């Protein structure tokens, strides 16, 4: 019997180890970007982009989201959209006050 939500799906140790190593490589990359000024004036955007890739990896593999159904993914998208709108509108308010 195939379950819709593959709850008993066990992510392999190899996959977790690979994700952990990639996270450490990205950590080294973010230090390089910030301290060696690799991206010049885009270093702030660069470090935040790397942080988001790291967060995405943690969400997808460690938090199992990759293997979940559409409901949780959809809810997360709603929350992140709400946060983006909140931040965007506040900035518009502050800039054009």
């Amino acid at each position: 019997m195939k379950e819709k939500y593959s709850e008993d799906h066990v992510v392999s140790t190899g996959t977790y180890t690979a994700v952990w190593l990639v996270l450490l490589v990205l950590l080294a990359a973010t230090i390089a970007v910030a301290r060696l000024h690799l991206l010049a004036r885009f270093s702030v955007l660069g470090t935040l982009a790397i942080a988001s890739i790291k967060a995405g990896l943690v969400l997808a593999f460690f938090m199992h989201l990759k293997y979940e159904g559409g409901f949780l993914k959809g809810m997360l998208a709603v929350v992140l959209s709400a946060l983006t709108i909140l931040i965007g509108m506040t900035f518009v308010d502050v800039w054009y006050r």
Partner: protein
Amino acid sequence: MSTETGHVDHLGKKMGMWFFLFTEILFFGGMFLLYAIFRSKYAQAFHAVAAEENLLLGTINTVILLTSSFTIALSIAAVKRGENILSSHLQLATILMGFAFLVIKVFEWNAKITLGLYPDSPLLLKRGKGEILFFGLYYVITGLHGLHVLVGCIVIAFMLFFTRRKTIDRGNYARLENTGLYWHFVDIVWIYLYPLFYLIT
């Protein structure tokens, strides 16, 4: 809880934790918003003062938290395979890393407080508005994050107890899985705090 014939609501077991995490995203999101607004207003001061942060200690703490996320994820996989002993060792490792994170955090705070850099300190009040705001945000946000780490350690300690007692096992591990979700969330918050307070200089 799960029987051969009974229906088990796998999604429902996790949904409550995810909904709680959604509120946590908005909670920390509000503080990130405050940081972003004041950073855009006092860009030069934030730029200069972030350089005073101890990059080495911040980086060590990042490695610790990323690794602790790795071990709690492995502990859940171990329970699903029926390896409770291995799982309990991995949970213990996670708790120890959580405490190591907090100890380093205490050293960092202590170094700043010794220098006279704490909210409302005479030294800090003499500095510019941007620096006062930076340190205010630093203490509030890392403090609340540290509190989350402490709570996580306590909850994992309970899970460790349950795993040893085998009330958490391969057929019943929702509590451990939800604890893991919380711990990973705390890790993600730090993934963003690290560049904001240590790197963007």
